């Protein structure tokens, strides 16, 4: 599987992401945001602080030259995964519904957190069980996902809510104020995925968890 990882000025997870996909045996490459074409099965928008997060997180990344190719990839039904800042980009691009607000505590949170799998009827989480608890790091200052009630119900109906923050027993434990404890979602067609936690940082025992590799493996 060919994976293209987009590198913006301020991105800091592109190498970790490439390492994770290489470990899975994928043919991966890191593309600079000024490139104009993408030839891949999966496009990954990795974590970081694209364009310094000025104005709003991911507001400027939306206009990077490569985004035309990302939108074209989405239009033809290609897979896209947005991790953390990449999730914020997908919201800004309108490829996923909702918007991101500052964490309720106003703190930047960087720690392992438990996630509950809400839906596995998609490629990304196809190796996970519904209700399974995954341990994956989070690292963000703006992960407080916001969406109106009507759209939330619509997303629930269409199984677009994929992951929620929880404690070790699976009870909802919300670190950032996100609506309904949401940590990750997808689009109606289940081709475009966005999540705040970092699966690429949970891909080796040395990292403290291998839950991330189980998630990413779903794309193979």
């Amino acid at each position, binding site marked *: 599987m060919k994976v293209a990882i987009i590198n913006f000025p301020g991105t800091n997870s592109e190498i970790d992401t490439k390492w994770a996909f290489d470990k899975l045996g994928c043919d991966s490459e890191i593309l600079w945001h000024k490139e104009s074409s993408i030839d891949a099965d999966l496009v990954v928008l990795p974590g970081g602080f694209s364009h310094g997060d000025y104005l709003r997180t991911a507001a400027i990344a939306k206009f990077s030259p490569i985004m035309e190719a990302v939108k074209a990839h989405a239009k033809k039904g290609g897979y896209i995964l947005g991790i953390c800042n990449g999730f914020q980009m997908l919201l800004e691009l309108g490829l996923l519904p909702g918007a991101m*607000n500052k964490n*309720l505590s106003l703190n930047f949170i960087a720690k392992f957190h438990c996630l509950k799998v809400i839906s596995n009827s998609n490629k990304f989480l196809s190796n996970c069980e519904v209700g399974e608890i995954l341990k994956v790091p989070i690292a963000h200052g703006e992960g407080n996902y916001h969406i109106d009630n009507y759209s939330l119900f619509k997303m629930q109906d269409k199984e677009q809510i994929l992951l929620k923050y929880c404690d070790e027993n699976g009870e909802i434990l919300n670190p950032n104020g996100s609506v309904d404890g949401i940590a990750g979602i997808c689009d109606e067609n289940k081709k475009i995925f966005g999540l705040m936690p970092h699966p690429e940082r949970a891909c080796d025992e040395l990292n403290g968890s291998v839950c991330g590799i189980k998630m990413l493996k779903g794309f193979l």
Partner: protein
Amino acid sequence: MKVIVNVKLKAGVLDPAGKATENALHSLGFISVNDVRIGKQIVFNLDIDCKDEAKKEVTKMCEELLANTVIEEYEIVL
């Protein structure tokens, strides 16, 4: 002409920075304060003389970049 764009979170969207500031004001004894909201002010010069045309151009800027209209609203002052 000089343009001022005020961007703030829509009513009903929780403003964590506003809430923290409100709490700080309360602990300083300003207990009459409530519902603090914090926004952004973007100020720039625009080389367009016609006010209507300027308004149209700045509205476009707000919709495309300056505000995320899912959770924010904007006000243009010319």
